[in-house]
């Protein structure tokens, strides 16, 4: 599940972890890649702007047009794009200051890269990108990382030295990966209203041909694209990609069936079986870096600050029923660091489904069943509002299983679903008692945004000094061993304090025509369209 209409900075970033993921192998083919053809993709959300830093959605279209210095590959490892190598301490790309508290990263840039208008791409563009995003007048959806940078040196057109105020292991998943701005086209312009937002200028394999709001975006081959395949053929293979905007989920599936679209990056689980039956459609299951969770509001009802109650919730929730209700696609988890990461701790405190234990915990803590079966303590009925994002069919199904699970132990949950801005506001300000939703992260997740005191995404108002310390330790080092041990300990602690119950990890289901070659799904927040240059259509 690509948490499609999730804002980008809900997406977090952090330190190098080893991954082993992505289950799917597309039918391998020995056919030669052919140039030409148009791929038609259905998107379920209405694009607000094509500026990747301003959009409230994940940038599917933008990923075909705009490139960053680095990008995550199908295993969520970073590979160089506009840079020639991924900087590391080993290759001298990252240098720590003498006191070990600051760092500088040197990017060697690819030569002979041109913007699609023909202007050369240089280190000045890298510096400009940081300046433009840092500018307080620019109202961006994501400015992550821009505050960590103190200055950028450009000793020559193909070298950019980024000086950081702190040791930022998540550097790769922030601004320079999101995309680089063209200095020559944007200098002195107001990024909030510039035509760039309609027709972004990039170095990517495609350029925007036409953007009709509410209807479609057509991107066409960028003839100046720098990448060639192994035989020296100029990429991309595809002539065009058409992104059609189809807000209704049922219509989206209908369009796949009727052949009006050939691909959609997110199919509701309920519809997978029928699409699987289509002869010319591949169903690609993609383990995304995301997890579903039930959060408690610490600023809300008093009972939710009682650990016994939170534990009772955890024992009461039937995670495998949720998984089964959703066609078995999401898998139950015990910790927020999803299993694909090597730092995922298998020895955390677990709360297997056990309603009897949940009841016993509540009884012992003094929450006694009232006349209507709902428990009461000190005159407070255990009746809470549960928020999910309205219109997300999968979440609404899970919500009903949770409601039913808790009713069985004497706790009433009432749905209070919201959508759009109202949902985001509730999520970030804690406008709920309990909250069921999902987070999707980059390859380098930063957990402090969710669980550190005052974290941006910590709408639940959770605060625990020990967690804060552990997260600080994990997120201010470039040493993988230190980071891993801190994260392990963090998970052990988090499952004890239990501000959040990890429910399932997600699988996104992509439907794509079997004619599309070289398609590999991407598990990160950079979307499946992050490497479209080698996609081709079989005749």
């Amino acid at each position, binding site marked *: 599940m690509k948490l499609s209409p999730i804002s980008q900075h809900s997406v977090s970033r952090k330190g190098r972890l080893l991954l082993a993921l992505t289950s799917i192998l597309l039918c391998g083919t020995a056919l030669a890649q052919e140039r030409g053809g148009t791929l038609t993709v259905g998107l379920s959300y209405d694009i607000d702007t094509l500026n990747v830093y301003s959009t409230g959605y994940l940038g599917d279209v933008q990923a075909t047009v705009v490139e960053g210095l680095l990008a995550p590959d199908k295993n969520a490892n970073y590979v160089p794009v506009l840079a020639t190598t991924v900087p590391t301490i080993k290759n001298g790309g990252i240098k720590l200051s003498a006191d070990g508290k600051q760092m500088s990263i040197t990017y060697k840039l690819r030569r002979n890269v041109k913007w699609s208008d023909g202007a050369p791409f240089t280190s000045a563009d890298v510096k400009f990108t940081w300046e433009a995003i840092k500018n307080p007048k620019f109202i961006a959806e994501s400015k992550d990382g821009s505050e960590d940078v103190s200055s950028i040196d450009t000793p020559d057109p193909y070298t950019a030295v980024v000086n950081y105020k702190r040791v930022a292991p998540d550097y790769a998943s922030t601004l320079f990966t999101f995309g680089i701005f063209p200095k020559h086209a944007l200098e002195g312009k107001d990024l909030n209203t510039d035509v760039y937002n309609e027709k972004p200028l990039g170095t990517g394999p495609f350029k925007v041909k036409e953007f009709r*709001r509410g209807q479609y975006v057509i991107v066409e081959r960028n003839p100046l694209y720098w990448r060639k395949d192994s035989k020296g053929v100029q990429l991309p293979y595809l002539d065009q990609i058409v992104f059609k905007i189809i807000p209704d989920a049922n*219509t989206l599936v209908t369009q796949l069936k009727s052949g*009006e679209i050939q691909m959609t990056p997110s199919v509701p689980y309920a519809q997978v079986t029928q699409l699987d039956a289509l002869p010319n459609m591949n169903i690609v299951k993609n383990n995304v870096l995301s997890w579903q969770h039930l959060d408690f509001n610490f600023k809300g009802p008093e009972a939710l600050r009682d650990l016994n109650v939170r534990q009772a919730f955890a024992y009461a929730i039937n995670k495998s029923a949720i998984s089964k209700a959703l066609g078995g696609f999401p898998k139950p988890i015990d910790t927020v660091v999803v299993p694909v990461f090597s730092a995922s701790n298998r020895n955390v405190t677990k709360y297997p489904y056990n309603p009897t234990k949940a009841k016993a915990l509540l009884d012992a803590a003094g929450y006694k069943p009232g006349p209507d079966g709902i428990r009461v303590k000190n005159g407070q009925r255990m009746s809470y509002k549960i928020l999910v994002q309205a219109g997300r069919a999968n979440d609404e199904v899970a919500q009903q299983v949770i409601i039913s699970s808790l009713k069985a132990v004497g706790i009433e949950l009432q749905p209070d679903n919201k959508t759009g801005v109202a949902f985001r506001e509730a999520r970030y300000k804690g406008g709920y008692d309990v909250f069921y939703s999902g987070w999707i992260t980059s390859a380098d997740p930063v957990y402090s945004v969710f669980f550190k005191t005052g974290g941006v995404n910590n709408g639940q108002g959770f605060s625990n000094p020990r967690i804060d310390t552990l997260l600080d330790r994990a997120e201010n080092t470039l040493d993988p061993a230190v980071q891993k041990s801190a994260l392990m300990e963090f998970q052990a602690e988090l499952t004890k304090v239990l501000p959040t119950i990890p429910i399932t990890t997600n699988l996104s289901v992509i439907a794509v025509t079997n004619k599309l070659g070289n398609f590999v799904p991407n598990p990160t927040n950079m979307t499946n369209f992050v490497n479209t240059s080698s996609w081709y259509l079989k005749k």
Partner: protein
Amino acid sequence: MTLNYLLKRMLGTIPLLLGVSLVLFGVLHLAPGTPMDVYADNPSVSQEALDQMKVALGLDQPLPVQYTKWVTAFFTGEWGYSIRTARPVVTEISERLWPTIVLGGSSFFLALLVAVPLGVLSAVRRYSATDYGITFMSFLGISMPVFWLALMLQLLFAVQWRILPSAGMQTIGENSLVDLLRHLALPALILAFANVAGWSRYMRSSMVEVLSQDYVRTAKAKGLPHNKVVYRHALRNALIPVITVVALDFAGILSGAVITETIFAWPGIGRLFIESMNGRDYPVLLALMMLGSFALVITNVLADLAYAAADPRIRYD
């Protein structure tokens, strides 16, 4: 009907629209949440920037002042900027207006074309099997949830038979009229459906009434052929009250487009409305609601005028 009367009616719409603006402004501002909430979760927007924006949008001022400012700006064509896309509201709406007019207009005429003959038939064959059949069908039309019917037709026409596209306004890269009509067929049909039902019922009762009147009976008694009586004399008179209802429903068709456009990915103002609502895009929402009300008020006036034009006995001074 004089020019004077027209002018008077037009002037009369102004206080009405002012009242509408007051109600809408009140509804939006009494509800929880403000336009600034869009940035609530956005750490890149500092408190300072928020305050600046508040001042720029005039949100720091008392409500009556805000209202006065907004309403003067609105009536002088200053509709402001969309919060969601930072583009002028006028641009946002004008881009989306045409598709809705195409969809609304064609389903309006489609409904009329079907409803009037059905109503007449029903009236002429009163209490026959045909009459009951038509009555039943038209009741079916108003009793079926639109989105339900839409889904069925999509599956049938686009998936099963593959003769019509299931959604969208055009095949990409094609601009022909035929292509537009093919895309228009299903949504226009769906949108017309409910109105066919209502209007044919109305047409029927109006026709029944006319047919029972003296002059029709006289015409028949004079030996005029039945068809001539029905179609020349009765139909004309029966149409007069129907015109009013039909004209008033035009604005209703436009608002029905909210659902139809979402299902059929039709890029009109109905969908813009939904998106703006999800984004709490108050400037766009207010402008759209005002526009809708304006359409209603104007069709009201037009209905009166059409009424007068159709019936020479009616005179307005």
